[in-house]
């Protein structure tokens, strides 16, 4: 530690050069932080459903094919299943197709029983929702997004479901309350949710009655999840509507995977960034040590051992990289809110700190070692004569 002032001073020997090198390493770690966070979010998607005890059952051959509502009774009777609820994809938006609203027709009793304790909702508002046929319970973030308040009538356009009464694709709901999700990792996946009554939906639609898009189950013992999944699927094997049951998180993962190997693309970019950077910083370090040959010779003359000189150069490289990495990662965390806006539904958490610092140390060693070895091997007489 007593050599810190010396390392610090040599680092800033050529101010402009150090600042530029520092900035380019900062930039690399800014990208590292941003891309790692996004890659992590894609690798660990949140389904908006909390817990390892939740299963999702869909049609085996296609998520777009429906399942008969009557399956619910059979699923409920499977040992280990403690609750089952059903939903249908509504395909809703408000006014314009870019204003997607995740409108979800739910069976109130089983839905709230299945998700017991996961929502923060006012008891009174929940009761009003139960009692209002056309009522809707909205995520508070969604309410804020469109500036809706309790008592508003909200018209949503469904891209799929026509009303039996007039053939219209427009459905109107009464906003009776709001909810939010307790689990912060699921909050953004749920931020566009509007819950309304399945009964209203099923009676109101002009076709597809009695069919649902998917079931959600809660199991008593999460370690039994895969056995229970198999039991559910066995019920419907060889029926016209075979099922596929999987943990809610796997279901979401499979969906994310359909976008392609995003993690690979992001890491390939990072690879290019770091290779470029390695070259750039390594070159600067080499040059800086070469210019200081006579000074290093003086140090050695003063009695600094070979190892100490090696350590001094490495420390300089380490200081530069770690400092820059820290600034870069801090900046990347500051950009998270912006990235979040572009990636609706993905939960971003600043996770790149530890791997980022690891990468910084590694980088420092790779770029610092060649000049450090060179400094260590310097022959005092030649170096003082400045024979490079």
């Amino acid at each position: 530690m007593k050599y810190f002032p010396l390392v610090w001073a040599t680092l800033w020997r050529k101010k402009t050069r150090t600042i530029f090198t520092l900035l380019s390493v900062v930039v690399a770690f800014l990208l590292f932080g941003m891309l790692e966070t996004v890659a992590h979010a894609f690798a660990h998607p949140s389904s908006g459903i909390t817990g390892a005890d939740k299963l999702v059952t869909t049609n085996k051959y296609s998520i777009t094919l429906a399942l008969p509502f009557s399956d619910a009774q059979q699923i409920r009777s499977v040992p280990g299943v403690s609750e089952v609820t059903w939903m249908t994809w509504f395909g809703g938006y408000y006014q314009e197709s870019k204003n997607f609203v995740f409108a979800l027709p739910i069976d109130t009793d089983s839905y709230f029983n299945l998700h017991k304790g996961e929502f923060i909702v006012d008891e009174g508002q929940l009761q009003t929702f139960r009692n209002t046929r056309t009522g809707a319970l909205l995520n508070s973030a969604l309410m804020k997004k469109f500036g809706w308040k309790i008592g508003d009538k909200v018209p949503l356009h469904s891209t799929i479901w026509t009303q039996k009464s007039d053939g219209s694709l427009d459905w109107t709901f009464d906003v009776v309350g709001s909810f939010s999700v307790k689990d912060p990792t699921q909050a953004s996946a749920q931020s566009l949710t509007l819950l309304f009554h399945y009964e209203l939906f099923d009676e109101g639609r002009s076709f597809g009655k009695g069919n649902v898009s998917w079931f959600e189950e809660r199991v008593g013992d999460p370690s039994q999840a895969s056995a229970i999944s198999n039991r559910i699927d066995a019920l419907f094997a060889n029926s016209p509507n075979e099922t596929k049951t999987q943990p809610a998180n796997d279901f979401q993962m499979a969906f994310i995977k359909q976008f392609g190997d995003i993690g690979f693309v992001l890491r390939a970019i990072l690879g290019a960034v770091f290779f470029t950077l390695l070259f750039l910083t390594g070159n600067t370090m080499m040059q800086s040590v070469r210019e200081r040959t006579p000074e290093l010779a003086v140090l050695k003359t003063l009695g600094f051992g070979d190892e100490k000189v090696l350590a001094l150069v490495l420390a300089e490289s380490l200081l530069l990289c770690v400092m820059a990495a820290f600034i870069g990662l801090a900046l990347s965390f500051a950009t998270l809110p912006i990235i979040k806006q572009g990636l609706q539904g993905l939960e971003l958490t600043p996770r790149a700190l530890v791997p980022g610092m690891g990468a910084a140390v590694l980088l420092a060693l790779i770029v610092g070692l060649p000049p450090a070895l060179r400094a260590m091997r310097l022959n005092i007489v030649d170096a003082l004569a400045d024979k490079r």
Partner: protein
Amino acid sequence: MFKQFAAVISMSLQTLPQRMGASSVIVIGIAGVVAVLVSVLAMGAGFRHTLADTGRADRVIILRGGSDAELNSNLTRTDVDIISNAPGLAKDAGGRALVSSELVTVVNVPKIDTGTDANVTLRGVGLRVTEVRPELKIVSGRMFRPAVRELIAGSGAAKQFRGLIVGSVLHLRNADWTVTGVFTSNGDVHESELLADVDTVGSSVERNGYSSAVALLTGAAEFTRFKDALTTDPQLKVDVQREPDYYAAQSKQLTKIINVVGKTVAIIMAIGAMFGALNSMYSAVAARGLEIATLRAIGFGALPVLLSVMTEALLLSLLGGIIGASLAWLFFNGHSVSTLGGAFAQVVFQLTVTRTLIVTGIVWACVIGLLGGFFPALRAARLPVAEALRAA
């Protein structure tokens, strides 16, 4: 003045090999930026091309009003009958309108590389599909037959998804379907799909009716007449779009995302590379301090010196840009990938390094080089002659 410039630049280029290390920083730094920029944008370009190449101006797609996409849409048999009698439609030899009633469903087929299920479009098509879509060509095997469970696979789908070779059997919803052929379709989005007879698909998914109707007009100019006839018909509630418009709208969002992401990453990287370029050019100027001072002392102007440093930076960055764009082209051009498209189904496309993208990459390289060269060039031009000579 030009002569002076030529002399200085030739001198600086001749001494360039002595500054190899520092100079290669510019080349490699910029090559990295351009390679990333061009590769990412090639993804967007490939996706856009696949959808933009779908359809022709004289072909229309008819959906139920307000549905946005085929998957959500629903047309009855009566709807299709009315559509088939509208004015402006091309007819076959027997005088029947060239309309293909289609039923779009999505089926799970595992991807070859990951083994996980992907949403693949199974499109039921009408009997006259080959006349409505003349670009559809069977490249191996044969066409499916109606009324039996046979399907043909697009060449893109066959490459990305498991079990889509001629003769193989696909188990879909309680029944076995035989793959009888593989088709191409001008490299458009249908190459990502499976095609089969519409009524066979309908009975398999227990759906009575269609998703959409695709109709060939006698000419692109007939569109308005045809559209007006359908939209003013009180019996119908449909949206009529030219095929290219329909597919262009589907590519818009993803292309935009790819472009924004690609450019953001490249801009940030470019800033990093610019710092690298600044460093190398400053050290190049420092290394040539004596040379520059001598030139100034014997009467060379400041401007030729400034320009020569800028030119050197520009040439190095140009080289970097060319290397970067070539790497992107070499590794990724024609690379086939698939993603979830706007219509909730997989779209197979190829990364396309277009000429525009190469030019874009090289322009970026030059801008980085100019910015990175300017301040060092300024310093070179302002070098106090006497001091620089004495320092040496």
